[in-house]
């Protein structure tokens, strides 16, 4: 690139260089990315993407070198979830690209705007089983919102522009742009075309009919036992303010999906908490008794509904949803409102009144009294550290303001139950795909999106080990996150299912961990081991004060379970509750005798 000095650009604004230039495809990639407002990409170089990497120094874009491409995809995902902007990851052809697959599928399941740029073997070699050739558009067809194979230099700009437009509009999702090495090497008399993308077959915007909106208002006003469901769409559509307004006007209680947490303040008196498999008992009971459900930006996932045949049998259902393919997919609804949650709430909120639901709210309060989910907080101190204690304490010491990124499993559900999120985009978690190993890299992506936030990774000892290699990236790139490993020596959620449903046969679930303090030290980072509740506060404070990534190894009760629990496919109100007598102290586990233990 001739004049790299013209590139210092303010955040998010495209560089100003205009006019015709002769550039290689490789240079065009970075120019187009800059003009989409990209500040950082997460990637790993290799043969077929080398021309692009060679032109990276001429660009204003920061590159984060990951240790495994799955990490790159999760970082782009975390960046997108935290910022609401498109996250970008880069990989080479073949194994580099296929290592992205888990991260792309994860972003697809949770509707995350992401663009993955991959190198591909030269177009002349496509189909020849060339070195590091994988049909990546073929592989990613069912796990992307769209994908594009680019074989000519003149197609690079339109393809990347399309990718960003498709990824970020409508129901967001990941888009792959697979660019052959020869397209990167070719030169072109190039001028950026700032005109909007036109795709005749892609119409993401929807509008409900006026009479449908009127019907919704009538249904709300006439309800006696109404509930609002807050899903991920509320956060993605930036509709949290309007939801709050709706609740203030109507006084209708709100239940949240896992990905909806933060979409409505957890500490609001009308917030009921999470619904579904590990939802609060009173929420699931209330759903079964409700006469109206107003579902906002959620898709009635099987983890939310339990047995579909007996789900919310008394409720009329209004489904506010952007994606027509979600209507009547799992739950038959009475009134679908197709469109952006924010647009629709904006049209509904002025017309709703206050339905007469005071007796209903009193009834839900009574149900709350019956719940056992918080009991663990009231258990007598047996000297044992419980995961719930750690998470509850983290919430207290961070004043509920941290941006928390969880992995997948028991700790994820405890986080959802005990860390009360009052603001959107402060809980990042892998919901649909349930991808272990998500937390650390996603938190690193979130760090680059939100440099001022206090960021906590909460991960289990199983999931953390899946992507622990990214600690090296933290160290090399000076990325600071706090890591709380909820270490129970088991793949805890699977162990819990084995305990409940497989006769207590713990097959392949006891898992050994490295000495996390030494692991941190090996990366030039700080590690702390915590074995009792009295040590939690000091450890959290040390981590917060340390300018570098800090790991805390919380040695928690080994065989604790997440309650309540609706077994997969069971009726929503058929919950397994925490047994009343307090837990015995856990049996001694030899796995904990390693390292610096005792």
């Amino acid at each position, binding site marked *: 690139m001739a004049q790299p000095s013209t590139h210092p650009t303010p955040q998010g604004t495209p560089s100003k260089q205009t006019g015709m230039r002769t550039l290689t495809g490789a240079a065009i990639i970075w120019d187009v990315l800059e003009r989409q407002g990209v500040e950082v990409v997460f990637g790993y170089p290799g043969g077929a993407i080398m021309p692009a990497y060679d032109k990276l120094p001429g660009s204003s874009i920061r590159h984060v070198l990951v240790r495994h491409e799955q990490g790159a995809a999760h970082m782009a995902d975390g960046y997108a979830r935290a910022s609401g902007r498109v996250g970008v990851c880069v990989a080479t052809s073949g194994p580099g690209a296929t290592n992205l697959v888990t991260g792309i599928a994860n972003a697809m399941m949770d509707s995350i705007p992401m663009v993955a740029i991959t190198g591909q073997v030269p177009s002349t070699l496509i189909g020849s089983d060339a070195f590091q050739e994988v049909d990546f*558009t*073929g592989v990613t*067809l*069912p796990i992307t919102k*769209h994908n594009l*194979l680019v074989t000519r230099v003149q197609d690079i700009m339109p393809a990347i522009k399309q990718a960003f437009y*498709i990824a970020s509009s409508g129901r967001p999702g990941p888009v792959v742009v697979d660019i052959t090495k020869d397209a990167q090497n070719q030169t072109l008399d190039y001028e950026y075309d700032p005109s909007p993308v036109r*795709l*005749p*077959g*892609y*119409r993401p915007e*929807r*509008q409900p009919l006026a009479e449908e909106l009127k019907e919704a208002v009538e249904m709300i006003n006439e309800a006696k036992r109404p509930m609002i469901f807050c899903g991920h769409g509320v956060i993605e559509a930036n509709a949290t303010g309007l939801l709050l307004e709706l609740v203030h006007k109507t006084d209708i209680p709100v239940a949240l999906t896992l990905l909806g947490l933060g979409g409505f303040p957890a500490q609001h008196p009308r917030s009921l908490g999470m619904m579904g498999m590990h939802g609060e008992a009173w929420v699931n009971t209330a759903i079964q008794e409700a006469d109206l459900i107003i579902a906002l930006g959620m898709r009635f996932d099987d983890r939310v509904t339990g047995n579909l*045949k007996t789900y919310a049998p008394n409720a009329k259902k209004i489904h506010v949803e952007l*994606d*027509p*393919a979600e*209507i*009547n*997919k799992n739950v*038959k*609804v*009475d*009134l*679908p409102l*197709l469109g952006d949650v924010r647009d629709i709430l904006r049209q509904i909120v002025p017309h709703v009144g206050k339905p007469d639901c005071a007796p209903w709210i009193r009834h839900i309060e009574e149900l709350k009294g019956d719940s056992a989910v918080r009991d663990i907080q009231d258990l007598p101190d047996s000297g044992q550290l419980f995961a719930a204690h750690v998470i509850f304490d983290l919430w207290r010491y961070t004043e509920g303001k941290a941006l928390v990124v969880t992995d997948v499993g028991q700790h994820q559900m405890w986080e959802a139950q005990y860390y009360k999120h009052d603001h959107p985009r402060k809980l990042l978690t892998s919901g649909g795909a349930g991808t272990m190993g998500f937390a650390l890299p996603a938190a690193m992506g979130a760090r680059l999106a939100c440099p001022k936030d206090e960021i906590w990774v909460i991960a289990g000892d199983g999931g953390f080990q899946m992507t622990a290699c990214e600690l090296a990236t933290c160290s090399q790139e000076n990325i600071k996150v706090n890591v709380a490993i909820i270490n129970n020596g088991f793949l805890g959620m699977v162990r819990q299912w084995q305990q409940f449903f497989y006769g207590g046969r713990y097959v392949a679930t006891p898992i050994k961990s490295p000495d996390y303090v030494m692991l941190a030290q090996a990366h030039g980072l700080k590690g702390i081991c915590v074995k009792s509740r009295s040590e939690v506060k000091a450890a959290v404070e040390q981590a917060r004060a340390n300018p570098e990534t800090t790991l805390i190894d919380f040695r928690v009760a080994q065989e604790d379970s997440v309650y309540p629990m609706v077994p997969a496919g069971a009726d929503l109100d058929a919950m397994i509750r925490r047994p009343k007598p307090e837990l015995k102290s856990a049996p001694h586990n030899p796995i904990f005798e390693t390292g610096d233990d005792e």
Partner: protein
Amino acid sequence: MTAPTMTLHTFVAYVEDQPGVLNRIASLFRRRNFNIVSLNVGRTHEPGISRMTVVIEADEDKARRIEANLYKLVNVLSVEDITEQPNIVRDIALIKVKAPPERRSEVLQLCQVFRARAVDVGPDTLVVEITGTQDKIMGLLTILEPFGVLEMVQSGTVAMTRGSVSSAAKAIAPDRPRIVA
């Protein structure tokens, strides 16, 4: 819950004529576990636009979801379920049947009843072309079976609505997909 009624639904879709589009559509049906009864793709009078006719066995809900899922594909310009509309539905079949000279006229006579045409004559065989609905084709096949059917090939179904409404126009200015609550 009562068992949903499964019927044949005929969808007409306009798609961009690009490599991989058929794969995207086939992949969608596989991914969502929709079983294709018949699929036909061909070019249209509009350059760059192909037309697909897809026949699927589905209940009403599933049919709506197929339509909505097809709409989500970026290369799909428009989708219409024409099952309930007055329409013309045609298949074409070629049937190679044993017809030695002494039985040839008998075969030809039967073909005439079905408005099928002989398109090739061999020493002992006839190739018959028939156009029509699936029922009609199967009717002729049953009649020809006793003579000895040697080979048969059938196109996918093609379909078009009757009257002056052009679904091609909808590819340019499409409606939003129908949703049945």
